């Protein structure tokens, strides 16, 4: 039964997964393809970037010279592109898990099956998680192969560590989408709340280096705990990542409890 739910979820989201996946693969491949040109003109780029406002560089994760492999990946891949796609696919699919069925008025028939609500929600969540896993694996593969071809000179283990951290950081937002969907039955709200929170905490983490007053709040940002930049330099924050998994588990437990009590709209 759970297999059926996961398969159904994968089938329902197939075109979305392919769309997000292709967008990520094409963008990453393009960025890696132009890296040799950027490296050749690294001095010019550094001069150009020096003139950019600090806030811009913070938001787009421009920390090291774009001529170095790590600096290039931080700015062009992990800074904005990867979080955007991974958040998009995870929040989008998790929001549809139960709220999508309820919104489409197909939940009554689904709940008439001999399957508990907990199992139904977890089956659907597993579907969304599988989509994230597929995109993460493809992302990692393209990154490893592309980096090697373009001569980025970043160890494979560091690349994979950063990919893993990028995937883990979106999990709490996906779980929040599940929770809001289970509480409200409204897929739009289940997308809006985690997207808003992701944007807020992303900016909080990115802008903290520029503002002392933001520092105490940085702990609230999952992006801070995921520490993708550190993972890319071979120093992943395992404790932070484990903490994100715990938060995800708590949010999923909340979603299960909410869905068990949910009055399904007709």
């Amino acid at each position: 039964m759970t297999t059926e739910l996961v398969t159904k979820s994968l089938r329902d989201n197939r075109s979305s997964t392919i769309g997000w996946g292709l967008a990520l693969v094409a963008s990453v491949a393009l960025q890696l393809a132009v890296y040799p040109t950027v490296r050749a003109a690294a001095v010019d780029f550094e001069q150009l970037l020096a003139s950019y406002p600090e806030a811009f560089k913070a938001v787009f994760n421009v920390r090291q010279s774009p001529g170095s492999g790590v600096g290039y990946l931080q700015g062009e891949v992990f800074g904005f592109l990867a979080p955007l796609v991974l958040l998009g696919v995870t929040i989008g699919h998790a929001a549809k898990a139960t709220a999508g069925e309820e919104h489409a008025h197909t939940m009554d028939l689904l709940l008439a099956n001999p399957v508990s609500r907990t199992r139904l929600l977890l089956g659907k969540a597993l579907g969304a998680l599988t989509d994230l896993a597929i995109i993460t694996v493809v992302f990692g593969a393209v990154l490893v192969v592309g980096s090697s071809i373009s001569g980025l000179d970043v160890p494979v283990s560091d690349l994979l560590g950063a990919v893993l951290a990028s995937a883990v950081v979106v999990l709490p937002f996906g779980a929040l989408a599940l929770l809001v969907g289970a509480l409200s039955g409204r897929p739009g709200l289940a997308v809006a709340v985690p997207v808003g929170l992701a944007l807020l905490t992303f900016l909080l983490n990115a802008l903290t280096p520029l503002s002392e007053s933001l520092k105490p709040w940085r702990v609230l940002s999952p992006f801070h705990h995921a520490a993708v930049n550190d993972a890319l330099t071979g120093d992943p924050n395992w404790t932070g990542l484990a903490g994100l998994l715990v938060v995800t588990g708590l949010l999923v437990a909340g979603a299960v409890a909410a869905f068990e009590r949910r009055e399904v709209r007709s």
Partner: protein
Amino acid sequence: MNVISTRQLTKRYGQTSALRDLNLEVRPGEVYGLLGPNGAGKTTTLRLLIDVIRPTRGSITLFGEPMSPRLRGRIGYLPGDLVLYDRLTGAEYLRFCAAMRGTHDLGEATRLAKRLDLDLDRRAGELSKGNRQKLGIVQAFQHQPGLAILDEPASGLDPLAQREFHSYLREYVHGGGTVLFSSHVLSEVEQVADRVGILLAGSLVVEDSVASLKANALRELTFTFAEPVAAATFQGIQGVRSVNADGTTVRCRVTGAVGELVRTAARFPLLNVTSDEPDLEEIFLHYTGDRGHDD
């Protein structure tokens, strides 16, 4: 042990009562028709039974047990607001439903689909309302449940499909199944239900056989005589509520047995007599405000 048993089942939405103190008993092997106008609480009752909404108060047992995932394996359900997965073909959808019930057996589904003349190779999104309804019916019975809970099952079916569905229902019940269905069409209830409950504004106002309900309902008998007959002739006869004489035509509104009324009419040169079948609305009215005047 009854297949369905509810005690004081009540559902409120804020200040509005959708269902009040429903005590419903559906016996094994019977077809129970839940009748009522829109908004009477029929769908609320069925959705409470299937556990997609929860009661404000009261209890439900099915086959003597409270609802559980395991118990749902013994129940077939057809929602009133039937929405299927548009992108799946009928066969794909039924395979999904079977798998959700832990089986790959499509034998009964295929037989019933053939009987209802339903093409399982077409996507649900391409089907007409009637054919979507047929697919909904097939999924409700494909696992041969012990109890079928059906919300307006004949809605959208053409007369031929309706007849086939009703005949299937009878076979299903003869085979040991039990049915609770809702309808606002009296003729449907009349054809298939053993017992009927009428819900009005969230309350079960009467529970009876269809024949008995109709017999007690307000009907109009129209007598045509060869010569004018005075209205007063029929006033005061048992069951007669009102008389309207217009020349040689006399219209009497009557409840219950009509023997005495017909015998009285027969004493005059009677040319013709017609009886309007009571429609559901009149039966509803009989059990609501008008009941006070009529009884």
